[in-house]
């Protein structure tokens, strides 16, 4: 008698379901994609997310404005200093205060180092996923120096929490500038080396050219920002378009691509590293001594020696710790150009110690939402290349 039970093949047709992730070497974080394959071709790709959802926005509603800073470290953990800067800028916009010049310059300095570190991870790891291991190793030596610089500045390599509302928690130490100078020279050489290894490499070219193409209109419709949008040919960079922290005073170019494919995204990122080095050079040249935090004890804590010796400073310290800052009632949206794209913070204040609502607009969520259309009809190996070039960071995606 013939069995009525259907075989797997009869049930699924010729399709095979493959789970990529949640912990797979090429997903770089807890991403989970359910792929439906016909042979090697992707018919359907369903991203599942939320494995790293910690409820950052919910937690923010019960934390004071200062206490939220460590949570911003854990958004895009490849360039946490940029999240610190973005968040501090948003709260300062809400308060309506201007921070000292040196604080602005140092913020630009560390942001650009973080941008390079982030692009190194993206480019290097994208290359590893496709099979080019060497470029990764050359680049990661420079990332090590970048993290050494963060450690010098903030005392932490990864979770920096470097900014405070109104400035920075301390000045950069002695020895930072010489190491940054050395980084400038060595990183330039490493980027050259990476380009020699990849840009004209026929295998790299074949694997990335024409993979994940997107038109400018489509990219805007999908909400792309950052290098992925610029690779599609839209010269949108918030550092130029809506300058903050004095970016309008620095000379740099905004590289754009034409087709938006993985190869263009790679080229844009490499060129951005060079431009960031240019900005770092200019910051180091114009760095002037001065305070790094606002001289307003209603916003920033007074220096410890004053707290121990003066009555008013002690009261200010106590008031700030116990009652927090006096916040105006209102709402602001402040966006900065993070390594991945537009990192926005939308803060609603009801005048209380804690934000009433804090929203993080992650740059990689809209980019990742286009993953299915990007890989549909392509090969499974190309999906890995596209995912790497999108630079999806789970901590920021799931918040």
């Amino acid at each position, binding site marked *: 008698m013939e069995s009525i039970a259907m075989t797997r093949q009869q049930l699924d047709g010729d399709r095979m379901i493959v789970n990529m992730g949640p912990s797979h070497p090429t997903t770089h974080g807890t991403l989970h994609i359910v792929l439906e394959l016909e042979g090697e071709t992707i018919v359907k790709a369903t991203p599942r997310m939320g494995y790293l959802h910690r409820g950052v926005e919910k937690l923010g509603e019960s934390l004071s404005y200062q206490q939220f800073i460590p949570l911003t470290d854990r958004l895009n953990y490849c360039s946490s200093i940029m999240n610190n800067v973005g968040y501090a800028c948003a709260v300062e916009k809400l308060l309506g205060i201007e921070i000292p010049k040196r604080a602005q310059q140092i913020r630009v300095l560390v942001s650009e180092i973080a941008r390079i570190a982030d692009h190194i991870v993206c480019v290097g790891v994208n290359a590893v996923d496709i099979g080019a291991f060497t470029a990764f190793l050359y680049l990661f030596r420079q990332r090590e120096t970048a993290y050494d610089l963060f450690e010098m500045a903030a005392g932490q390599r990864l979770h920096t929490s470097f900014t405070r509302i109104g400035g920075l928690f301390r000045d950069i130490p002695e020895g930072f500038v010489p190491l940054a100078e050395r980084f400038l020279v060595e990183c330039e050489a490493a980027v050259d080396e990476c380009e020699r290894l990849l840009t004209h490499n026929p295998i790299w070219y074949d694997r990335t050219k024409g993979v994940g193409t997107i038109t400018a209109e489509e990219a805007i*419709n999908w909400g792309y920002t950052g290098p992925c949008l610029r690779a599609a040919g839209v010269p949108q960079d918030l550092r130029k378009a809506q300058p903050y922290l004095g970016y309008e005073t620095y000379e740099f170019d905004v590289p754009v691509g034409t087709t938006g494919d993985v190869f263009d995204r790679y080229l844009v990122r490499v060129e951005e590293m060079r431009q960031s080095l240019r900005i770092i050079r200019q910051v180091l040249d114009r760095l002037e001594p001065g305070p790094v935090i606002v001289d307003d004890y209603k916003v920033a804590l007074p220096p410890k020696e004053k707290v121990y010796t003066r009555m008013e400073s002690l009261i200010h310290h106590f008031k700030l710790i116990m009652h927090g800052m006096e916040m105006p009632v209102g709402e602001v949206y402040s966006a900065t150009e993070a390594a991945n794209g537009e990192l926005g913070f939308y803060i609603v204040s009801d005048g209380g110690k804690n934000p009433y609502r804090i929203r993080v607009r992650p740059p990689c969520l809209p980019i990742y939402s286009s993953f299915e259309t990007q890989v549909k009809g392509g090969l499974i190996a190309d999906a890995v290349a596209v995912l790497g070039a999108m630079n999806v960071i789970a901590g920021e995606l799931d918040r």
Partner: protein
Amino acid sequence: MVIEHIDAQMPGVIMDRHAFRGDQTIVVPKAEFLAVVELLHREGFQFLVDITAVDWPEREIEGKAVRFDVVYHWLNLASQERLRLKVTVSDGEAMPTLADRFKTADWFEREVFDLFGIRFDGHPNLERLLTWEDFPGHPLRKDFPLDGGDPFCMEGCTAPYNNGERA
């Protein structure tokens, strides 16, 4: 600038407007929302930056409880102007979707549905995005407990924040 254009072309549509620290905000009624979006698109606001919501559990406007603000952030790439568009909805009321016009709205609306429980009419795939399918309640509502309550329904899901039901 664009607010004057909206006011000129659709008189009376702007229920409320304010500017704070250079951020322009307008509030429009839900019935006119799609027409305003259409007009914004023609005015060059083609970049939908973000969709989110704010919960005001106690709020009443003209005797009617309107619990949520649905907040849309727009960007004009040519002039770099930003605009915040707000629509107020009450608990259980649905918003019209933008997913057919702006692909980026797809996941943002799913996230708002997941975390606030605001439905979007006409959305192609309105499923939870960050939490799992039978997660009880909507975490970003103000009455959802900070410690997460009983997300695994160990107590038989009698959590007060979801009327004792699974979501």
